[in-house]
């Protein structure tokens, strides 16, 4: 019985923390000091560009929502 209550409690805690994470989209999972994940994507000319191409340089990685949306 005690075991059963314990596991139920654990389940509740896990469920509650998962809920808390979903309710907080404002927090980023990448923070200052982390290694930047490498990637390879195509630029507007169709050329492949990778983050590691720019080792030795500061990279300003600017995510924007949509093309043609001002700013």
């Amino acid at each position, binding site marked *: 019985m005690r075991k059963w209550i314990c596991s139920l409690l654990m389940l509740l805690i896990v469920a509650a923390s998962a809920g808390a994470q979903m309710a907080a989209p404002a927090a980023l999972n990448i923070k200052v000091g982390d290694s930047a994940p490498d990637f390879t994507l195509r630029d507007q000319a169709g050329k492949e560009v990778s983050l590691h191409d720019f080792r030795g340089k500061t990279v300003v*990685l*600017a995510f924007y929502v*949509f093309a043609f949306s001002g*700013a």
Partner: protein
Amino acid sequence: MKAFQQNLSKLEAANAQVLGVSMDSTFANKAWADQIGVTFPLLSDRLGQVTRQYGIYNDKTNMGRRTTFTISPQGKIEHIQVDQAAINPADTVDYCTRPKLKT
């Protein structure tokens, strides 16, 4: 992106490379770059994989969040601006162009 273009010479002088990223197609990015005169790469993350990797994919709206990451020459995240704060790149430009205290 226009604002980054306006600051491009400053950023280049500070050994910084600007990369724009969105979930648009390369065709949309090409047309937009031509229209607003952007000369740095606008990268197409069509499936949102990189947007997810960087933790800024919004599952509710299926869109990325406007975020600017500054990455050091050694590949570490040094500076982050999210949402409203990322619209004006002045803070990022300041960060990249100010003399570094430590080497």
